[in-house]
């Protein structure tokens, strides 16, 4: 057996091991997603107070948080969303497959971090957005959907996924 083949036999498994360890250890949730920016889907829905939602209200830099009163993880991320809204981050709620009365009493009980909540009882707008469940959070910049987080929103995800996108947008302006 010649020398180079022997080296190859030793190096190849090491290379494969390192390669797969690297891939497997990446935290999927925190990976900068390959999310492709898209226009916000057209919709005709009211908010939880029965007022028709105008598409202009999605302009600027806003978060769209998908939530429901039946959703347990929504309660987990609720304090963080409240903190964001206190720091002047504008958050719009998308109330997903819920009932209006339950949703409103949930907000009364736990506090309302949202500018308003779009009421989507059948999940039509959510489907067009590609929502797979609650909670999920989208980053909207001037009515374009530019970022997406599935599951609980927290400080780490906010800093690693949404902040860079917001900074990019600010630089372009």
């Amino acid at each position: 057996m010649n020398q180079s083949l022997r080296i190859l036999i030793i190096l190849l498994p090491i290379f494969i091991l390192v390669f797969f360890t690297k891939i497997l250890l990446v935290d999927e949730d925190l990976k900068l997603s390959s999310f492709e920016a898209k226009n916000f889907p057209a919709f005709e829905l009211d908010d939880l107070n029965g007022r028709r939602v105008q598409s202009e209200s999605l302009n600027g830099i806003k978060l769209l948080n998908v939530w429901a009163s039946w959703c347990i993880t929504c309660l987990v991320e609720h304090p963080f969303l409240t903190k964001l809204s206190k720091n002047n981050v504008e958050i719009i709620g998308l109330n997903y497959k819920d009932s209006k009365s339950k949703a409103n009493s949930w907000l009364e009980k736990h506090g309302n971090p949202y500018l308003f909540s779009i009421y989507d009882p059948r999940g039509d707008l959510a489907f067009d957005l590609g929502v797979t469940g609650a909670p999920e959070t989208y980053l909207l910049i001037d009515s374009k959907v530019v970022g997406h987080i599935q599951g609980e929103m927290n400080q780490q995800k906010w800093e690693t996924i949404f902040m860079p996108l917001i900074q990019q947008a600010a630089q372009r302006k």
Partner: protein
Amino acid sequence: MKKQLFVAFFLVLSSAAFTQIVYEFENSVQEKRFYLLISEIRCPKCTSGSIASSDAPISRDLKNKVYELILDGSTDKEIKQYVSERFGAFSDYRPSLSGSNYILWFGPFIFLALILAIFFIRRRV
């Protein structure tokens, strides 16, 4: 009488098993397309599995949508396009032959060819 009551009891209970939505089609072609499509669309909420194999709420919504679109006369391509516009290219279990997907389809063969080439060149030397 007792026996009949016994049978009736289980018949009533078994109705719980039939609460799932039954999809009715205009013809068998539509039906075949439906079952093929739902086996080729990935459940976005699952680690790995088609919407056919999943009963997650989002999979149910997706199946209903595929059903609706088939009855509306959309083609398979249009339906997959519709789903991937919303849930990403990730949703298609049979990646299309385009763009970066070429690596996915031909990468292993190129790799194999390379290894074989190296092997034969080495032997000749």
